[in-house]
């Protein structure tokens, strides 16, 4: 038997790097990604990037308009708005990431479990999902806030994270279940079962890796939702509380008394929320278009 008789391996087309491929097909998605990276940079290195201490009260410069000293102007306590926005990105990212990760992961596990077992377990999980879906996102979050109140660990209100994560669970569970249902009938799942693997091993090692695409899309999209929800709750005075710098909080309370005197108090924090949420939404959207070959033309 001669090896030389084998046909030479066909030369595969050179694979472009994934990053370049994404940038080429989704230029706006790539731009949103840059925005996200800038935001993360500002969030991680707030101390170095921010020109002022976000909590420094300066009664000499109350309600100052944007200037070279204070790019975003100052608020009713003379605090530098630009610095507060930079520090606010830390709050938004920490809460956005953790609550979306928590909500999406629990949702995904529920969804896969539901699809894998089917039958009665599926029915019960779906009933539970239906119940949670009957609450609008912010209403469910507010109920959790009312139920748990504040519980601060390391400067972060853990219960606020739960409040934001819980409404995400049923929404992710539903999508992931649909994706997992089509995988359940795949031969490799039967094979794994025939090989006698435990249910949890099949769920985590065989099914979960195959629903990564919808999971990632939901995860990024829900970071956007989570940031928006955190801003809304803080705006209502039921989320992050003073003195922690948070975007929604900057818009709440007496900020509205200064529509005429100091509109920058309203403009910049709101623009920060919108830009951040926009970037995550757009990135998630582009990711979906890029990952889902059916939508490619």
């Amino acid at each position, binding site marked *: 038997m001669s090896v030389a008789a084998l046909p030479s391996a066909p030369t595969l087309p050179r694979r472009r790097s994934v990053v370049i491929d994404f940038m080429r097909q989704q230029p706006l998605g790539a731009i949103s990604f840059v925005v996200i990276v800038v935001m993360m940079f500002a969030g991680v290195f707030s101390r170095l990037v921010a020109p002022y201490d976000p909590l420094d009260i300066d009664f000499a410069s109350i309600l100052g308009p944007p200037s070279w000293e204070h790019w975003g102007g100052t608020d009713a306590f003379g605090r530098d708005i630009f610095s507060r926005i930079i520090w606010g990105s830390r709050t938004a990212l920490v809460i956005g990431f953790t609550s979306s990760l928590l909500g999406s992961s629990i949702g995904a596990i529920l969804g896969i479990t539901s699809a894998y077992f089917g039958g009665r377990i599926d029915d019960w999980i779906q009933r539970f999902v239906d119940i949670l879906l*009957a*609450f609008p996102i912010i*209403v469910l979050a507010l109920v959790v806030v*009312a*139920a748990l109140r504040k519980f601060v660990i390391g400067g972060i209100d853990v219960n606020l994270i739960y409040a934001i994560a819980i409404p995400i669970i049923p929404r992710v569970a539903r999508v992931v279940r649909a994706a997992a249902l089509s995988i359940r009938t795949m031969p490799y799942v039967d094979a794994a079962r025939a090989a006698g693997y435990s249910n949890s091993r099949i769920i985590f090692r065989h099914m979960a890796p195959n629903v990564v695409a919808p999971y990632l899309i939901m995860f990024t999209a829900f970071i956007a939702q989570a940031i928006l929800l955190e801003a809304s709750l803080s705006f209502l005075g039921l989320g992050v509380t003073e003195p922690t710098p948070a975007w929604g909080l900057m818009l709440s309370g007496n900020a509205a008394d200064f*529509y005429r005197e100091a509109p920058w108090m309203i403009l910049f924090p709101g623009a920060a929320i919108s830009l951040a949420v926009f970037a995550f939404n*757009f990135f998630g959207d582009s990711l979906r278009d890029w990952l889902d070959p059916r939508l490619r033309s």
Partner: protein
Amino acid sequence: MLRYTLNRVLLMIPTLIGVAVLVFFMLRVIPGDVVEVKLRGDGGAVSQETIEMERHRLGLDKPLIYQFKDWMVGLATLDLGTSMWTDRPVTEEIAIRLELSLQVAIMASFIAVLLAVPLGTTAALMRGTWIDYAVRIITIGGLSIPSFWFGMLIMITLLYLFNWLPPITFTPIYVDPLANLAQLVWPALAVGYRYCAVVARMIRSSLLEVLNEDYIRTARAKGVYEKLVISRHALRNALLPAITVIGIEFAFLIGGLVVTEQVFNLNGIGMLFVQSVSRNDFTLIQGMVMLIAAFYVAINLVVDLLYAVFDPRIRYT
């Protein structure tokens, strides 16, 4: 059709019972209740005895299982109880604020749907062009811009352009229709933007899907005018999935109202809900959650039935 309807109505009941059980126990996970907020909220020194008396009066000292029984029996007889803060019936508290919120919601839906259909359709027909991109940016903007901030921007704009702000006292539409509209159109716009964005995106994607169908190719092949292909063959079918989104988003408008009413200082359902949460007014929270959930489930039912009316395939399977 009747069987289908009955089946759907019966399916609503377990969901609503589930909501009732869930909200009751969630609110009682951690001790602490309305009484402390009410009597000690202002930092006043109130004796433990007074607190216990108030708790007793509100029935909060009864074992959980009895409170739960009261709640479920009340629900079965459509009695939502009285607010623990104001001592007025929950239904009354809601009823006096319903008109305002409902009007804003209806106005918002009109604005949203009227804008979303042309936006979504043009985006789909001009797929891949700059128009499509522009619509995509506008609609993702609608999902990203917080409605309370959008409301504030509207206020600032009104202030700078006309030196005018919407009044803070509510004028019902039957008292002075013009003043009423001038006041409520702004909050409706603020919550309607998001609504519009969601619907427009749905119309775009479902229209794109429909345009790939064989019957569209057939229609084109037999020489039907392109305009008719779009309006009669494509759009009609594409609007069907949009109905679902329109319905569900309408039911969920309360979510937008929760924050927007705060901005425009409107005393509606949304504001009542925020107040009841910050006061730990359990009965009011429970009652409102039940109402919101019932509304959502009912809208879902209507949507499903409409679907069955428009799409015979569903009726017979």
